[in-house]
């Protein structure tokens, strides 16, 4: 463990980009946890006298067409945006890695069925499939989560299939089998934990993509309903004001989205360095 901490410290100090990404990640988590308690204004409180004000000392990011404070709305939205992305990634991680492990361990029919499922999902342009799923299941936030989870499933299934497959007849697995462990126990207790590091890298790289997808879906009017503060829908609402010059409505939530995605992408690269130094590019 101390070795790991040393390595972690080395990674953070050696590459300043990862350090910045780590700091931004902490800020995002803080905003998600404590956002609603620290913002200067109520994100839903409108004010008829102070609509469409440009950024000022009172309203750092200006106010929207209903006089709501854009800064407060962006901070409060962090929780919903991260919650959608994290739940989606957790679902696809669990389902995908279990399906992938079974396919990689047992081969044969299991492999063929899982392979067919992932191939079928990948045969669609993924964002379009997500739109179709939300349209079919109903226009709610939960269904945005399920749709995002389904389109990310193949990535996890494929990584864990490969990782399980290469370890299936490794010496430590053979030794455990000789000691009398059942197949499922071998897979669950001996092989699966070893596949987690590469999967964690996939999680981090995937988070950014999940955020982008979920925000894209709410940008086209799916899932999150208006007055709820959410980055995608805020950009959508601000889009109409761009052509008349009120840039702060769309620009700030868009920038928040970009920073969140950027953070997870950088973090994913850093995590990859931490877990597998050979795959550095």
């Amino acid at each position, binding site marked *: 463990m101390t070795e790991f901490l040393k390595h972690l410290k080395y990674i953070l100090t050696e590459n300043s980009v990862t350090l910045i990404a780590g700091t931004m990640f902490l800020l995002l988590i803080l905003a998600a946890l404590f956002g609603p308690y620290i913002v200067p204004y109520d994100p839903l409180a409108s004010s008829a006298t102070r609509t469409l004000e440009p950024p000022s000392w009172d309203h750092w990011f200006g106010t929207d067409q209903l006089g709501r404070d854009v800064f407060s709305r962006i901070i409060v939205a962090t929780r919903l945006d991260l919650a959608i992305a994290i739940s989606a990634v957790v679902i696809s991680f669990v389902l995908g890695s279990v399906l992938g492990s079974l396919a990689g361990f047992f081969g044969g029919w299991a492999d063929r069925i899982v392979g*067919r499922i992932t*191939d*079928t999902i*990948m*045969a*669609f*342009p*993924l*964002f*379009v*499939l997500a*739109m*179709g*799923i*939300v*349209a*079919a*299941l*109903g*226009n709610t936030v939960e269904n945005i989560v399920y749709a995002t989870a389904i389109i990310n499933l193949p990535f996890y299934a494929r990584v864990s299939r490969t990782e399980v497959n290469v370890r299936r007849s490794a010496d430590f697995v053979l030794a455990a089998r000789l000691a009398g462990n059942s197949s499922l126990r071998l897979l669950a207790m001996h092989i699966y934990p070893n596949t987690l590091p590469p999967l964690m890298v996939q999680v981090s790289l995937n988070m*950014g993509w999940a955020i*982008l997808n979920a*925000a*894209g879906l709410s*940008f*086209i*009017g*799916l899932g999150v309903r208006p007055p709820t503060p959410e980055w*995608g829908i805020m*950009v*959508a609402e*601000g*889009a109409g004001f*761009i*052509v*008349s*010059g009120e*840039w702060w409505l*769309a*620009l700030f939530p*868009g*920038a928040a*989205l*970009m920073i969140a*995605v*950027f953070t997870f*992408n*950088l973090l994913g690269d850093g995590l990859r360095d931490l877990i597998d130094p050979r795959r550095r*590019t």
Partner: protein
Amino acid sequence: MFGNEKFKMIVGRLLQAIPSIIGIIIVTFVLTRALPGDPAVYFAGPAADEKSIQEIRVSLGLDKSWLEQFWIYASDLVTGNLGVSVSTGQPVVEELIRRLPASLELTFLALIFSLAVALPLGIAAATRPNSWIDQLCRIVVTAGVSLPVFFTGLIMVYLFYYIWGVAPPPLGRLEIIYLSPPPVTNFYTIDALLDGDLETFGAAFAQLALPAITLGIFTLAPLARMTRAAMLQVLSSDFIRTARASGLKRSTVLYTYAFRNAFLPILTTLGMVFSFMLGSNVLVEKVFAWPGIGSFAIEALIVSDYAAVQGFVLAMAILYVLLNLTIDIVYTLVDPRVGLDG
């Protein structure tokens, strides 16, 4: 024409597309039948009584078994019947076909822009590792995948339309003062050129430029990253060293020897790029009020026009399969390792 081996591989690849298409049809079928609640009640509307709901159930074929329903769905597809769009009252197929050229024109121009920037950037970055151009490539790649495509589009509109006033308003394919060119391909830029009408061509191109660049920036990242990685790998291989040692010109080594080999992994990446592109197309079309199939789907989604949405999903998936097929066929044709003896 080309070797027997290549021909066999292409036929094999065409056959491989069949299970994908069957999978797509099954998924879209399940999506149409997975409507929350009873679809018959939904389509009958709020004022319907038990009798009219039953009539609609029979007319939609919902009283039959799933297998029968699937058979009807599949045979409808073969005859090009995707149902009628509730919001426009037109057959979905006609709506899609009418709007498809707008989307394709946008996608193709974006792809051309993306390749024109990504390939030289990736090659330059690979030939001079750790130079400023390599750093630039790294920044572009990281920024490209982090920027939400609708956000990029809005920034473009703000800068080029509102601040600098060089771009036309982001409202569709052609400004209202121009007549659309006589339809031949339904790509406005090409039709205008065929008509010899340079003014309309300029106007159509101006409308097209911002959305295409927006879409291109998003897909640039994976292409540039792959070009750089593939070129780096090829440039460090033995045959390049031999070519250099033999005193061949730098450009010959770089383009004739290295790039032709690096091109194969780049082609493979194109498949993923198309998946991104067709998805982001929807978002870009919304930002620029582009009258393609993406905006059609968004309008349909808002009013719960299911037949239209499912038709859109199916059309996009089939388009994606066809694009992937094309990529694989091109791959087989340009791969120097296949069919040398053919």
